């Protein structure tokens, strides 16, 4: 995965967060990412795409950010959002981010098939083992970390 494609992923993620979830995101470099650690409980959402390119793409964040996304999308108060709604909001966010990323990378011509997103809840240690050395980008989304990576 080239640095260019990671930049495209970062930009499309920020744009999707703003347009779909009404949240502002900023890229984090490695030092900044260390200052904004993921919580002990992580929500990891992943899907695979195939076609002109094929890979698994994953999004990791704190449950609190998923709930905030759901609050914005459902127009409900935070205490009214169910865990199912928050998880579904995160899955749909990844689905849209991936579609926008592939379009930005490859244009209109190729067909991609996207699998349904799957959400798991690894602990931070498992997550760190899985993600070590993987191509990834980190964002600060209104004070919460959000990490996107490939091939997890």
């Amino acid at each position, binding site marked *: 995965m080239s640095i260019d494609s990671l930049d495209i992923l970062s930009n499309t993620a920020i744009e999707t967060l703003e347009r779909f979830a009404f949240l502002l995101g900023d890229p984090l470099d490695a030092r900044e990412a260390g200052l904004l650690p993921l919580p002990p409980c992580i929500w990891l959402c992943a899907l695979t795409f195939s076609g002109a390119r094929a890979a698994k793409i994953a999004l990791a964040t704190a449950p609190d950010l998923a709930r905030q996304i759901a609050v914005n999308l459902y127009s409900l108060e935070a205490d009214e959002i169910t865990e199912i709604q928050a998880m579904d909001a995160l899955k749909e966010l990844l689905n849209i981010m991936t*579609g926008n990323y592939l379009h930005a990378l490859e244009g209109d011509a190729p067909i991609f098939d996207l699998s349904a997103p799957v959400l798991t809840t690894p602990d931070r240690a498992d997550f760190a083992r899985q993600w070590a050395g993987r191509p990834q980008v980190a964002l600060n989304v209104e004070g919460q970390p959000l990490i996107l990576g490939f091939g997890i």
Partner: protein
Amino acid sequence: MAYNILIVDDSLTARTFIARTLEIAGVPLSHVYQAADGQSALDVLQREWVDLVFADINMPVMNGVELVRRMRANDLFKAIPVIIITTDRSTHRMNELHAVGVQAYLTKPITPEVLKATVERFLAPGSGAV
């Protein structure tokens, strides 16, 4: 005139987002029906009057392309406009959808302005689309 709209998507979040965006856009709504797949959408169409359908492509049980095929093969539903809302922007997929009778194609995330313009294109008095 207020419209009956059917939103078909396996994601509850996507359905809610589209319904909310219709409200924000000021589209006059009588009822907004929701279905999680193409088969459930056909069940809604059997029992409710629907003016326009928004549908995703990738869904379990019955996908959006098959839903449109079944609608176009049914005299009761074949005139109902179908707008696909999806993340897939490939020209090949777009051509495939037009071939089965999809009227328009929007990519996620949609904006209120685009949604309103699309609804008016097909349902506003004088549009001649239905």
